[in-house]
């Protein structure tokens, strides 16, 4: 099946799940245009708002309608309502600055090539052209923690908690860890039909996005083979010549492009002796540290939230279990010492409300993204890292998730027909994502831009001639975004046509 982590599967009869990735927003608009994806059957349905239930029975419900949200926040704090405008403006500016960088070929700061230097200077110049205010935000965004960053604008704890959540997605960091503010922006740049920071569901699940891209590719003449696992990348005196499939078929090619992570590309599909020692060291040092899990539920009815009883528009958006900053931070603390969060952060969506085609009439599917679930569980006795413990911890983890939800929607336990629990170990096994990291490697400062994935090799090329990288492990990183693939394609065409 196509799509990698963006797949739709009928896990239980009649219930279709976006098994791993579940929302679409980072997909670059130019890609949607260039490949004419709507014509190929991709349809994005807006996912309106985020509802965060609170322990005291209240809730915080942010929607795309700025003024509605403003009024809602004012219920909690007038000051924050005003700050929300300022914050929104600031983030848009940040996005304006960062976006061109997403599509940029990372320069090599250590090369003596003046062009690299000029590229760096061009960023510096654009930085200079920003207003004082925005410059500061930009720097802080790169280095501060999500909470510290938000603290500058807001006082309402639940608001900061639920906003900071997007700063930790897919990282092994807490909302108070420096560097998480950047991921805020990474997710803030979500864009549907040009509308800033709106998230969307794909009709028919995220798999439909993959299929649309596939169909576009086929139309352009690409040949796609599924169920064709690669065993090795063939090289001949330092040059890639093709691949060998697990079934033994040998496919010759004038160039090979790998969209899987560096660990698989260079350590599994190749013999490290074919590569420079320094490069191999970099590949081994590259951090994955999967920290998230996924729980997919087939529901007999809709969950009933104590804070907003009954059905309603609040269920059509995302529902976030992120009641307080401490709750988020404590969830992280559990993970730091090698346990899954007893009370995890959960981001839920119920696609069947927006797209009935994914569940039988009257029934529903609910997708729960969960953090933290550290790939490296530790043996309580010895403290040694034991990912395989996940095989006995899977259901306990699933229960922790359900319990956390039940605190706010007590009926959840009675309406579950089926439950699918994906641990980082499962994500690794199923999707070939090393250590279950959904971004093919952490989005931390030392693994971004010209440092992603390996210092000196951030320009989609590899030490092997005619072997290239195009996955999330390359700049600008993960999310259903397509940017690494497009950047890589541009780069490869340029190199090959030389």
């Amino acid at each position: 099946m196509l799509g990698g982590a963006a797949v739709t599967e009928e896990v239980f009869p009649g219930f279709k799940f976006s098994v791993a990735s579940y929302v679409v927003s980072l997909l670059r608009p130019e890609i949607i245009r260039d490949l004419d994806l709507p014509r190929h059957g991709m349809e994005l349905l807006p996912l309106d708002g985020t509802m965060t239930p609170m322990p005291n029975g209240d809730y915080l419900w942010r929607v795309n309608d700025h003024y509605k949200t403003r009024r809602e926040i004012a219920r909690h704090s007038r000051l924050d309502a005003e700050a929300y405008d300022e914050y929104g403006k600031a983030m848009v500016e940040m996005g304006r600055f960062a976006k061109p960088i997403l599509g940029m070929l990372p320069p090599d700061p250590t090369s003596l090539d003046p062009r690299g230097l000029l590229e760096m200077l061009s960023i510096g110049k654009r930085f200079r052209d920003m207003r004082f205010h925005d410059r500061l935000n930009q720097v802080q965004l790169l280095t501060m923690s999500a909470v510290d960053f938000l603290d500058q604008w807001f006082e309402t704890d639940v608001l900061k908690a639920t906003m900071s959540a997007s700063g930790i997605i897919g990282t092994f960091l807490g909302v108070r860890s420096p560097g998480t503010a950047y991921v805020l922006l990474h997710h803030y740049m979500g864009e549907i039909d040009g509308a800033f920071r709106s998230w969307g569901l794909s009709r028919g699940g995220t798999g439909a996005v993959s299929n649309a891209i596939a169909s576009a590719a086929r139309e352009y003449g690409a040949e796609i083979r599924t169920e064709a696992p690669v065993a090795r990348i063939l090289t001949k005196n330092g040059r890639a010549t093709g691949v060998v499939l697990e079934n033994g078929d040998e496919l010759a090619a004038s160039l090979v492009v790998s969209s899987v992570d560096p660990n698989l590309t260079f350590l599994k599909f190749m013999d490290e002796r074919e590569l420079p020692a320094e490069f191999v060291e970099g590949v081994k040092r590259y951090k994955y540290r999967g920290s998230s899990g996924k729980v997919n539920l087939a529901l007999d009815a809709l969950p009933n939230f104590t804070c907003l009883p009954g059905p309603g528009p609040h269920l059509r958006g995302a529902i976030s279990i992120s009641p307080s900053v401490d709750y988020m931070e404590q969830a992280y603390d559990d993970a730091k010492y090698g346990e899954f969060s007893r009370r995890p952060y959960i981001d839920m969506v119920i696609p069947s409300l927006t797209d009935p085609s994914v569940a039988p009439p009257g029934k529903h599917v609910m997708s729960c993204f969960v953090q933290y679930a550290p790939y490296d569980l530790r043996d309580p006795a010895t403290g040694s890292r034991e990912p395989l413990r996940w095989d006995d911890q899977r259901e306990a983890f699933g229960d922790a998730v359900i319990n956390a939800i039940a605190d706010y929607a007590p009926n959840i336990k009675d309406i579950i027909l089926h439950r699918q629990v994906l641990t980082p170990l499962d994500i690794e096994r199923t999707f070939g994502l090393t250590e279950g990291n959904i971004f093919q490697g952490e989005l931390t400062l030392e693994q971004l831009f010209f440092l992603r994935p390996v210092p000196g090799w951030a320009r989609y090329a590899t030490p092997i001639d005619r072997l290239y990288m195009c996955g999330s492990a390359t700049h600008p990183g993960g999310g259903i975004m397509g940017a690494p693939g497009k950047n890589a394609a541009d780069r490869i065409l340029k190199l090959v046509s030389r």
Partner: protein
Amino acid sequence: MAAVSTTTGRYDAIVIGGGINGLTCAAHLAKSGLRTLLLEQRAQVGGCATESELAPGFIVPTLSHATGPLRSDVVEELQLYLHGLTFTDASLQLSALAGDGRTITLWDDARRTAQGLSAWSQKDAQAWPAFQASLQKIGALIAGVFINTPPSIDQPSSRDAFALLQTLGAFRSLPKADQWRLLRWGPMAVADLVSESVEDELLRATVAADGVFGAMLGPWSAGSGLQLLLTAANRALAWPAGRVVAGGPAAAARALQRACERYGVEIRTGTTVHRIDIKDDRAIGVTLAEGAAIEARSVVSGVDPKRTFLTLCDAEHLPPEFLWRIRNYRMRGTLAKVNLALSALPQFAGATRDMLAGRIRLAPDIDYIERAFDHAKYGRFSPQPWIEFTMPSVTDPSCAPQGAHVLSAYAQFAPYTLRDGDWDASRDALGDAVVNTLARYAPGITSLIVARETLTPLDLERGWGLTGGHIFHGELALDQFFAMRPLLGYGNYTTPLRGLFLCGNGSHPGTGMTGGSGINAARDIARALS
């Protein structure tokens, strides 16, 4: 008092705060021929570099027990060796105790350290010299940045451009591997940084401690790598290498005071500044707590940015955005200080006398420090803090009565803001936590205690004017460093007000008591005034 101000006439510069940086700045200004007045609210100058009599005959370094170390250009330019500054051997940097009798000693000479390490880990013994060499090279590069004023982003001067090219050149001249290390290590978590080169947990924790010292960071916090690099940079600028100021920070302060007097600085101690007087967006002098106003062409603040702009200046004179940013300047102290007077030398498992003559760290592994940090996140102090202590009486018996000793301990983490209760109610509990932790390494120590002093971040704020009790005048994070310390656009010791300058740790490089901020600022201010 008002009479005094008129009789003293008009000063070229008034320096607020007689800490290491304030003294350095004042001395340099006076040496450059400017009429300089230094105001210190405490009874003696030195700021955090001071000592006190804990109990009859027991002299302890009240706060800091090790200088930054002092920067070589400060020592040379102010000729501190002519003003009583002497040095002692510091080839033994520090030691770590595991508690079970196992120890690690870090020497100035990496090869010597490696020899000792080979007893625990051949791998570390081999990796250590290379690791230190990289740290040194990178440290030397950053040191080059320390000695210059950060460039202006809007109108870079020719000097800025030159300094920038210099740095770029220095960067290029690093081995390629170290160029990448510099770029990776800065934003990294120090735990990851050391784990790349070192496998022994005790050694990891001992090195990683430099990354979190005084900060609201745990070893697993991204960005803690920067502080480790800054420590390396400080070392690269120390004078002379491998030696430290004899008599500790207080001795350094005394030498700087003599230098000030020698160059004609007028020093007034026990004098609290109430307000910086501002007229038409220009600092024109200060008003003292007792009401006297003193005029000057310029005011140089050695106190932290928050105190300078939010307490000493009237808000009306400053741009709202600037004030908002300064309010959000992060300086949440996490360091506590415990001083002990001991009736005899405590027996630390495995510690030799040589080790006790230097700094000693107590942190068995990285997670121990991280757990200590976790408490701070939730507004509690660590029941089991990580500790660095010295025993000055081991090298200098005059610090304590015959056979008796003094012990000076830094302990982290103790957050400035406690969630439950306040520091006045929790001070002793913190002291107990520190003593109990010490007792796990030196079981008999409790019974030796003659007197004990516990200083919380609140005490640091009350007694030394450190806002939030932050010993570095603000977190040394990437967004509060270099051209952004304390704030982007004001990294060059200037402020929104003409005639008002910064020279404290809250300005570049701001890496502790090195005199670096003071001397850098003084050079620019002297140029600006003459």
